[in-house]
């Protein structure tokens, strides 16, 4: 989590970058990675730091319904003409086709090259674009439904603690009033897992 120092800067504990509270952000890189929401944003900041891709600017665009306006504004910002790579990362959620469609239409809206499939670049003479859908492909190369939390949990699939988490969630679901579904079960699952690890 970022902490505030005396110099009125905020330092990210993950990547060590300094931010200035109150200042508006600008495009400073020719490689942009747009993330859907805070969790994807943090994961991608961690990823670019881990892989030492310090020339990639990771930006949180908020919820998927905000993507269209966000890209329109991004397209209008200073230095966008210098951007050579634009990648959008979001969750597939429950409908892969709809998830792809929303990203494609947002890209199309500002006349950028529209990738046909996830994880593939489409380019013109100025820029290449791509989009990622989490949790990613299955063994048959098909995009899976789900979220970035599913991708994270897949890395600990063999951990016996997951059995406890699954049992807990089954029990919690059984005790919901009016048989309502647990909201955001993927988040509940990962938080329960994180709460259970040493």
């Amino acid at each position, binding site marked *: 989590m970022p902490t505030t120092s005396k110099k009125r800067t905020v330092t990210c504990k993950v990547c060590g970058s300094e931010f200035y509270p109150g200042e*508006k952000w600008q495009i400073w890189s020719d490689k942009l990675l747009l993330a859907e929401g805070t969790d994807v944003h943090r994961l991608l900041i961690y990823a670019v730091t881990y892989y030492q891709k310090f020339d990639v600017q990771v930006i949180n665009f908020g919820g998927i319904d905000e993507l269209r306006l966000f890209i*329109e504004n991004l397209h209008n*910002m200073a230095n966008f003409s210098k951007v050579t790579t634009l990648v959008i990362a979001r969750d597939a959620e429950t409908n892969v086709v709809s998830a792809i469609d929303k990203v494609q239409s947002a890209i199309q809206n500002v006349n950028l090259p529209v990738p046909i499939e996830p994880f593939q670049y489409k380019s013109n003479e100025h820029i290449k674009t791509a989009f990622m859908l989490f949790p990613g492909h299955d063994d048959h190369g098909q995009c899976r439904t789900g979220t970035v939390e599913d991708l994270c949990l897949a890395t600990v699939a063999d951990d016996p603690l997951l059995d406890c988490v699954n049992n807990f969630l089954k029990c919690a679901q059984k005790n919901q009033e009016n048989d309502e579904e647990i909201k955001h079960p993927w988040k509940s699952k990962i938080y329960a897992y994180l709460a259970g690890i040493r």
Partner: protein
Amino acid sequence: MVTETTIRNFKCFKHLTLPDLARITVIGGKNNVGKTALLEALFLFFDRTPLNMILKQYGWRGLANVITTPEGMWAPIFREYDLNQQISISASIDGNEESARYKYNPNFMLESLPTSETPDDSKGKSVRTDIEPIPSFSLDIEYDDGSKTKKKSHLIISSKGAPGIKHDYDSTGLRKAIFLPAKLQISPKETCDRFSKLTKTGREQDVLKFLKLIETRLKNIAVITEGPEPVIYGDIGLPEMIPISFMGGGMVRLLDVILAIAWCENAVVFVDEVENGIHRSLLPKIWEAIGNAAENYKCQVIATTHSYECLEAVHKGLASRPGDVRYIRLESERDNITAKTSNYEMLGSAIRHNMEMR
């Protein structure tokens, strides 16, 4: 209302197109990118009759004198000071395509010859029989409003350096526009004339309501002549009314803005650095009031700003009329200035995401 405009070779603009202007259009961008120049170009397009149509724009920028040569008087409005270029400003106004072209002409022939006084002036003046007409310098201006004949004007500098103007058309009934410069205050007389016109039609309450946004104690305003010129005074509950200018720069700014909108009914008001002198906390209310006044008086307001807070205020204050709002950011790209247009929804999204959009 101007909904679209293209400017070529005016000051810093090689070729600038603004494809989507609205009733309230706010212009932003970094220093020296041409925000004021854009207002000046559009204002010049409307300001067609005065001899000082260009000179007064220099005055707004703080230049007190210029040399009466084409280089001194006209070159500064040409891109790269190059008098050989042709300036053109075109606009779509209420659906009608109109344009103006400004071209330097070093061989303009005056239609009159210089005369001399005679010893007995009652017998008339004298003219030399061997005189040859001497070419003057002219800035030839051609207006095309879509009608059959183009309207021509000439700003002239005679061979003796005297500025003049000649219109080859009937210049009555032209559209009105007002320019409120960033620094200079409108003359008190002009302000009083505008206020008096409103008072005559019983609309002075609009002004009072507007000014109350800053000075809540204000009960009444009136034109009072004590010295050589009339001045607008306000009653804030003191034993005597006091000049509005004593209530602060923000009040004067606000008075200029509301009087321009109300006086300039059905026209365009240009405001350079609109937020000057106004505290940020009041800006949303002021934009709301500007939006209401612009609609009531069928006016278009085109304003510049440097301030993010002003843009936030535009978004907040004009929430009830999103279709009336555009924000245009000017950007210097390579050797040209380009415009990036945002509508109300985009402006809101940029603010929510803390994007730098100035």
